[in-house]
């Protein structure tokens, strides 16, 4: 494996020194490109009180291509599917190398506060969110309690 680019070292250092409130991201001790991420469910959202584990991987081309991020913890969210894949434009066609691990994680945190059923990844969840939002939010709370609270 090639040496770790300076940019990744700098990002990691800053993530450690000045963590984003509600988010922790720690590089794996064996692979500096693999981060163990924990995001706290935002206050006021159906995910409040939950602790969500994610994995974040910086591909070889990073930052010229986006990090790969996936929810490890099961979550009931219209933009996150059963496998934990996330529908977020900046992780796909709207990626820019001016974005960083920090900005990606902040965007994911924001996505938890504002689900977007009009651009779904989990179709069944999105459908429920549109047809019966109250019921959908209740399910999301239940899942949070079930899977995201130890």
């Amino acid at each position, binding site marked *: 494996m090639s040496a770790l680019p*300076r*940019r990744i070292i700098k990002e990691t250092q800053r993530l450690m020194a000045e963590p984003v409130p509600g988010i922790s991201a720690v590089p794996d001790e064996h692979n500096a490109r693999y981060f163990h991420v924990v995001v706290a469910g935002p206050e006021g959202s159906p995910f409040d009180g939950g602790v969500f584990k994610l994995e974040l991987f910086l591909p070889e081309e990073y930052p010229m291509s986006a990090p790969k991020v996936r929810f490890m913890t099961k979550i009931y969210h219209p933009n996150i599917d059963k496998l934990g894949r996330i529908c977020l434009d900046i992780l796909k066609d709207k990626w*820019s190398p001016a974005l960083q691990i920090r900005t990606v994680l902040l965007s994911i945190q924001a996505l938890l506060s504002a689900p977007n059923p009009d651009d779904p990844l989990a179709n069944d969840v999105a459908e429920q969110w549109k047809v019966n939002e109250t019921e959908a939010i209740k399910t999301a709370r239940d899942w949070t309690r079930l899977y995201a609270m130890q």
Partner: protein
Amino acid sequence: MSLYENNTTNASVHQVHHQNHSPLIDSNYPIFYGELVILGYNGNLPHGEKGRRRSKFILTQRNVPNGVKKSKHYVVKQPQQTKAIQDKGKHSISYTLSRTQAVIVEYTPDNETDMFQIGRSSESPIDFVVIDTVSPDKPVGDTLAQQSTISRFACRILVERNPPYTARIYAAGFDSSRNIFLGEKATKWQHDGEMDGLTTNGILIMHPKTTFCSNGNVIDDIPNSGQKYCLWREVSVCGGIYAIRETRSASEKGDKIDLETNILKDGTLIDLCGATLIWRSAEGLLRSPTKKSLEDMIDDLNAARPQCPVGLNTLVISRKSSTLCEKEKQPYVYLNCGHVQGLHDWGQSKNSNARTCPMCLSVGPVVRLTMGIESSFYVDCSSPTFAFNPCGHMASERTVRFWSSIAIPHGTNGFHAMCPFCGTPVSGKLGFVRLIFQDHVD
């Protein structure tokens, strides 16, 4: 002390007098009149400053006055046979009216003025040798084929040796035989018994509308329409001011402009047809930034530690125009949006030079930032936080706005605004871009 005695010590009196209000003057050095700077060079010629061929010519008082003034004139049949023409010590201008008739105007030494001559010739009467400025946007083959349009003896400037050292410009310069010949085909005329004429491609001048470099004082009335500002005039062999001709070398002269003069003001542009010069007076330069102050401003910009938002590395603006800084530290600007970054190839489109800016996703060309270090082109002393589009020369906001609004003669036909540091015609809606530096992105 009698009045007469006082007059004999005139020169030294003035030197002392000037010393009192000008820090540029030291009694050990000659009096500094001003300087002529060729547009399109950033402090030096590409192959270095050599002898009379340089990017800038400093005019200082001559040890011995060498100015000339008009004296008698007369009609001759054969100018070549005339004593004044044959006498290599005598300045004269010959106006050929027909094959058998010419008017000779003799010039005699003038102890009150110093003369400086500008032209393409490297012969000794030319003080400042100026070769056509090659626009860097042209392909090399194109320029090689191009013939020079600058006259060998293009123009002369006479400066009064006494304060306020008034400088006047005249078309045509005296050759090695101290003659100026206006041939049969040249545009010439007689007015009130005095002969005058124009040279082939002519000498155009444009005076600044307001103070060129006011150093912070109000100069914000630059009109949006470049047309209004661009009042190029033509100066005749005797220093008269005329509207420009229909085409550069048309035989019909323009209308006489009585209210304007050939007295150079700080910031007057002089177009030789192939190269354009700016006159900076000694007084005007006192208000201008110096090379040192520009370097200090670069140091200030670098002290803020601008970063590349992609590499997260610190960028360094080079103080020198020519030396490349370390590749990784070299800043580049996205010309559509002004975001400054290091060099990387993200967002490069396959078919053009355009790139997507990682900061704002706008698409446009990218260019290396280069400091505009020729301080004489600055119209104020503000920080160089703008850059010309498309060449990437950095300068202050007023400086880029000023030059982007000035149409400069281009070849023998047409005008265009250009970067004064390299001569590249400006492009884009404004011709320049505001630089956006990022710091503390990591």
